[in-house]
């Protein structure tokens, strides 16, 4: 059993990991609430954006240009997906919509491996200026990028909550995610609201991708399937509550990293998100609430 002073740095790194999960977990929930679609391609879109930024930067483009392209790529690609596949799937079960985004994930994943191969031992990384500064807690350095990631999680949590609740566009999005047809009959310009939601979602994906490429790794497989772990936090938040998702992500990150120095459990630490999500889901389903509610497929 490691001593307290040995555990301290893992608390810091655990919070940083939690920030990583929070960024994509909160992103998933925000998109789900705004579009009614569990956008499982979130990680893949961000990864591809970051890889494009990497290629631009290593070809000599200035950093900021790469970052903007990354974020815009996420927005435009997601908007295109929403415009093409949103309407035909509009009346379908949330499950079908989620599985469709897995289709997009596969397309992007295949394309990324084709274009940014790992043959010949190619290892890529992307570095933000915020990496260079920071402060020190518990004998380890915390970079501004980590703070930025966590901060973006907080901003998203507070900001999107307020946006969806208090602005008319946000209200329209929530209504539309609930029932598209009724929202349309109420005179809401469904297509435009939807386009805004998708574009915003994609921009968020691109932004998260850029930060995660710096915080985790610039690697297509890692970033694409990071969504599976982050999904755990989103599930604990029942795909609805942004603050719960945020808190759950931090807890998952903390538990994962605190298990790392414990010899008996360290081999199983990667189960953390899945086990916590399964427990939460089952506990909630026992309460017989929203979790078991699912729209019938027409």
């Amino acid at each position, binding site marked *: 059993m490691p001593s307290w002073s040995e555990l301290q*740095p893992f608390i810091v*790194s655990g919070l940083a*990991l939690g920030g990583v999960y929070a960024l994509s977990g909160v992103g998933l929930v925000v998109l789900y609430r705004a579009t009614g679609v569990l956008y499982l391609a979130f990680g893949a879109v961000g990864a591809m954006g970051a890889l494009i930024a990497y290629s631009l930067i290593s070809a000599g483009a200035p950093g900021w240009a790469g970052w903007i392209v990354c974020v815009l790529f996420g927005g435009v690609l997601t908007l295109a997906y929403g415009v093409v596949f949103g309407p035909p799937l509009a009346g379908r079960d949330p499950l079908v919509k989620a599985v469709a985004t897995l289709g997009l994930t596969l397309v992007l994943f295949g394309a990324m491996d084709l274009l940014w191969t790992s043959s010949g031992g190619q290892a890529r990384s992307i570095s933000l200026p915020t990496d260079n500064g920071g402060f020190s807690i518990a004998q380890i350095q915390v970079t501004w990028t980590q703070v930025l990631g966590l901060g973006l999680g907080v901003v998203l949590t507070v900001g999107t909550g307020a946006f969806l609740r208090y602005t008319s566009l946000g209200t329209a999005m929530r209504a539309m995610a609930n029932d598209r047809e009724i929202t349309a009959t109420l005179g809401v310009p469904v297509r435009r609201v939807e386009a805004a939601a998708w574009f915003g979602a994609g921009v968020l994906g691109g932004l998260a991708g850029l930060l995660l490429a710096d915080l*985790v790794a610039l690697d297509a497989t890692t970033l694409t399937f990071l969504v599976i772990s982050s999904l755990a936090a989103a599930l604990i938040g029942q795909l609805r509550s942004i603050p719960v998702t945020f808190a759950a992500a931090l807890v998952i990150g903390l538990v994962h990293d605190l298990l790392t120095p414990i010899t008996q459990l360290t081999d199983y630490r990667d189960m953390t998100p899945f086990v916590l999500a399964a427990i939460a889901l089952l506990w909630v389903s026992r309460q017989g609430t929203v979790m078991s509610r699912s729209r019938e497929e027409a």
Partner: protein
Amino acid sequence: MKENAPRRWRLAAALASVLAVGGVLAGCSSSSSSSSSPAGGAPATSSGAPATSAPAAGGGGSSDTSACGSKPGVAATGTPINLGTINTQQPGTDFTDIANMAQAYFTCVNANGGVNGHPIKYSIQTEKTDPAQIASDAKQLVQGNHVVGIVGNTSILECTINHKYWESLGFYVIDSGIAPECWSTPNTAAVNMGPRYSSDGAVQYMISLKVDKIAFDQSNVPGTDYIAAGPKAIAAAANVPIQTFTTNVPIQSANSVALQLVQAAGKNGAVVLNFTPPEALKILQAAAKLHIQNNVKAWGCSTPCDTDFLASALGTAFDNKLFVNAELTPADGTNTPTMNLYRAILKQYGSNVSGGIGSFSQFGFVEARLAVQALSTVQGDYTVASVNAAFKALKDVPTGMNCGKFTYGDYPMHIPNNADYMVTPTKGQMLIVPGSGCLQISTADPQIAQYVNLAGRAPADTTSLGS
């Protein structure tokens, strides 16, 4: 509405798929220029290197490729000699650079007289770390491509799956291995050391730096205990405590891995990593960002870390802090005739070697060169029997890239490469640790001891460093 919707959306879906494919193609062209830029960057930086370290005249790529064949400029037109290979190709683990470089070498040979006038036809099979696929790849090479020799295999599992098959057919494989059976069976000889002996080398070097503890971490792939047995034996022989770890890949929390290893190693200890380049990079970068890379005395790494991608991504954080065991002569700053030929062939024929200069393509070069040398000794027809007899007869051949000369021979096990180099990142390149020569892997590893008993130490190849 439901009735028409499917038709309308079929059109939309078709359009979208066309767009998606189109986008992919467009992306393809844009990235091929960008992905070639790091590869293109490598020669540029290495041509800058002679000023600092390499004494020989002429930068990379100035050499003539015709040196690969016996009749310069004469295309071989005889009946082809069929060779084959099996390489892993899956997202995150791609070893096709080895086969593609061997192919480039053979193309060069074919354009310059071939092997006694015969061109070499090389069949490349890939696999996705799938045992069934690996077994059927071997059958396809033998029955479908009618190969008479196997050269260049590089796969996480291939030796385990196929060594009995090759044995039953009388094939003597020349490969770059990973699975334990690549070094413990009669019909496989690898030009590389593989994860175990390369980790041995890294640990051995750490011990020579007088560290008082070693934390050894590797990715959780098949055979971890087999790999860890080597470093454990080496550390035990030197009375240095060693703690071994395995980490699931892809790593999502590199920070905690780095913290765990640094804590385990301690102030005067060393961390030794055995990972693929992207995963090793995650841990090293995490240590640098946490500012804990100096909390241990040194960092060690097995061969995969020996790539300029890693050196340039790390910046200066690990200069003279990270020491990488390099199974072959490092490409940076080395201008031997062999190295210049390698660079020239890569430039002229290796357009699909996507990683460019690096240890993977070097493996392919060495394997192809050994095969051609063996083939040129064959009298009469090129059959499985004659070709593999020639492979097996390779003895004390200087490869120009190994510390020791290469010997196949008739042994129950083969570890022909048991001496190599240590490199360290220096200004974005991997350069030989100043003042270090060849590092012989210690016979404290029982497998090495067993092999040295059987075959003896290989004589040194003085051409490999050109000094």
